């Protein structure tokens, strides 16, 4: 599903440049649930941003579903993001003046789905994350866990090839974190490919594979026995 070879990325910081990713080779098969770990500054978020086409790579190649992601202008990137990817952010990034339902239907709006159908689909996804009753509520009226579930529903609404989650539990307490991970595991069981960036061991152990990053290179890549979040909920 994802194939990265010899990926380099550096940031200009005034006069000096910061080499964040120093040659990453990385592959993800369809249906995998991968945790990308590393301390802050290890480059895990940068990797995720490049995978999410939110940022561009300096060197190397990136294949997503056999499509070479290269020389993207913003218009093309937006289309690919809309077709291939779903995002879940640490800070939820819901649009605060739109209701849960409207937030979930937004990616469908950009796919050109008709309004009625859009709302039906969005409601279906909200039901799947257990928030059908909260459809008309604004993000400010939801708890952190609920917000993240709305964000996951929104990410799934566009039926992406890959779901990218950047510290999805970073702003949540342990119990809520496990609830969110339970949801992510269930979505994975349905056959979706998911990448989770985290620095928490327990969250990482709930994935099927852990990739550890240190100073811009992969230092460990191993399959693990998945801990079911449902056991803790």
């Amino acid at each position: 599903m994802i194939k990265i070879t010899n990926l380099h990325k550096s940031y200009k910081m005034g006069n000096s440049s910061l080499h964040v990713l120093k040659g990453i080779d990385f592959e993800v098969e369809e249906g995998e649930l991968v945790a990308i770990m590393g301390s802050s500054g290890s480059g895990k978020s940068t990797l995720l941003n490049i995978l999410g086409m939110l940022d561009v790579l300096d060197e190397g190649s990136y294949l997503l579903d056999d499509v070479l992601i290269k020389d993207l202008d913003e218009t093309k990137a937006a289309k690919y993001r809309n077709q291939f990817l779903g995002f879940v952010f640490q800070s939820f990034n819901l649009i605060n003046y739109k209701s849960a339902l409207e937030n979930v239907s937004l990616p469908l709006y950009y796919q050109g789905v008709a309004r009625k159908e859009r709302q039906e689909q969005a409601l279906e996804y909200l039901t799947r994350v257990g928030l059908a009753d909260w459809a008309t509520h604004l993000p400010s009226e939801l708890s952190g866990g609920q917000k993240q579930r709305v964000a996951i529903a929104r990410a799934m609404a566009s039926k992406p090839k890959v779901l990218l989650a950047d510290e999805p539990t970073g702003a949540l307490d342990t119990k809520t974190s496990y609830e969110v991970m339970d949801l992510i595991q269930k979505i994975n069981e349905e056959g979706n490919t998911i990448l989770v960036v985290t620095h928490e061991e327990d969250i990482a152990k709930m994935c099927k594979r852990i990739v550890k990053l240190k100073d811009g290179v992969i230092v460990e890549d191993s399959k693990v026995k998945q801990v079911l979040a449902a056991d803790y909920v």
Partner: protein
Amino acid sequence: MFNRDRWQEIFETIRKNKLRTFLSGFTVALGIFIFIILFGFGNGLKNQFQEFFLDDATNVIFLFPGKTSKPYNGFKSNRRIEFKNDDLSDIKEQFPFFLEYITPRISRGAVVKYKNEFDNYTTRAVGPAHQFAEKTILMKGRFINQDDIKNKTKYAVIGRLVAQDLFNQEDPLGKFIDIGNSVFKVVGVFQDDGGDREERYIYIPYTTRQLLERSNDKLDQIILAFKPQIGHSGSVLFERKLREFLKKKKSIDPSDPNGIYIRNVADQLKQNQQFANVLQLIVTFVGLGTLIAGIIGISNIMVFVVKERTKELGIRKALGATPKAVIRMILQESIFITTISGYIGLFIGIFVLKNIGVSLQDYFIKNPYIDTSTALFSTMILILFGGIAGYIPAKRAAQIKPIIALRDE
């Protein structure tokens, strides 16, 4: 072009961000409103000015007799000069090229009676052409005509306010009034844009006045008009030749500054016109200034609005909004708001202008107005600049990488 879904998205955004919508809409409406009001007041000031100074005919020259201050040709100085009837015919004969019309004027105060009503009025004994010199507008009947002059008829044309005072509701036409103990028949009623004073005059034939004053042939002043096509420079030449001619005829020293006075309205007109032009310039400047202030206001609001929405735009882009979609959304929204509120400001402005217009007459603002094309044009300019002001930050926002926009707190 019309996309129901896109509009729905925009209406939703507008509905859910009432304060922001109100702020930007208010700026536009206020900008247009102030522009309309100031421009209208400027026009009102111009109107008032025009009424004050430009109500008489503009091609008129007044001749007044005076006293000589130099001895000349055997005459002593300090001699009183008088105009006579033959001066009229001489001028007519001498200057057919320049002259449009000529009329004398003899002013006398008199007690005027009708039935039990009486009051003091000024009578002006004139010729038929006087009507054009003063731009007298006849409401009823007719003005003094050539037959009246020839037959020395006892006919009078009275001002609107004279008719009001003496006749009340009665129709004055054909009635007889007593002017300084002689009876005159009212043949006309007039009005004049020059104000109340002008409408308290009574016009009678100048020959009748001369007959009443022991059949003399003296004239107070002579009013004449030059042909408009000779222009201002032609009138100056005419004035000079007229002075030379009259001084020679009346035996006045050519270097004597007194004796005959000539007032050329065209000179005055030129000054007044210059003043009016300055007024126009000020009005235009004020209008332009307000318009620019309005444009700056909108630009500020638009920059602020886009800045405030940076994160939202980042989210939308992460979810698949193309830069074009982002720009189109912001532009459509801003143009929609500026158009609606622009026209609201326009209509309120025109409405206010119409309603307070009359009460401002005491402050030298008469009939303030703004012509529709100026109003519409300025509104359109404001909408256009509102669009441009929205486009620039929107374009920049659309090009920011979503990752940077998302980081924006």
